[in-house]
């Protein structure tokens, strides 16, 4: 029963993440929605799969390793994309920008 609850939670997180990517105004706020909702939804669905599968223990551990790798890789790629977008010249729509003040 708990795996269907986790599956429903992951699916709704993914849907709200898609809504956030479509509605937010600039790249950095879109990256917020993309990173958090993708990582949370994918990890939740993979933990639900690991609970629901009837295979041996090593296969279940393999699902958990996949979830761990997603949680390790996704924030790293988003950090690289944010830094690259700033160096590319995309101005953020912000109220205060201390990064531009320190790196003119």
């Amino acid at each position, binding site marked *: 029963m708990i795996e269907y609850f986790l599956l429903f939670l992951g699916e709704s997180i993914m849907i709200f*993440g898609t809504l956030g990517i479509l509605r937010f105004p600039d790249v950095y706020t879109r990256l917020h929605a993309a990173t958090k909702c993708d990582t949370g939804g994918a990890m939740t669905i993979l933990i639900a799969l690991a609970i629901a599968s009837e295979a041996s223990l090593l296969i279940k551990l393999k699902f958990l390793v996949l979830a761990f790798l997603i949680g390790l890789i996704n924030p790293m790629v988003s950090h690289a994309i944010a830094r690259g*977008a700033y160096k590319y*010249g995309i101005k953020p729509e912000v109220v205060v920008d201390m990064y531009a003040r320190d790196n003119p």
Partner: protein
Amino acid sequence: MVEENLLVNPFGWAVIVLVATSLILSYRVLFGPTLADRIVGINTVTTKTVVILAIFGFIAKEYFFLDLAVVLLMVNAVGGLILAKYMEGAR
């Protein structure tokens, strides 16, 4: 050996939701205002594809799909880092 009817399992419905959200996100990939928006869209779609591969492996009880998912995740990481590095240099 995928089963004939995907929708006997609640995890099969999850595949349909994931494919629908990927199709909606392809708007951001095709018409994104800048280059960074397209890269964000590509990364998100690839992560959803990794989850779809894991669900297929679970439904068909063919667990080599998990190795394919790990390899696709590595390709996603390396591709994202290379594109970010390219953006950093191509001012």
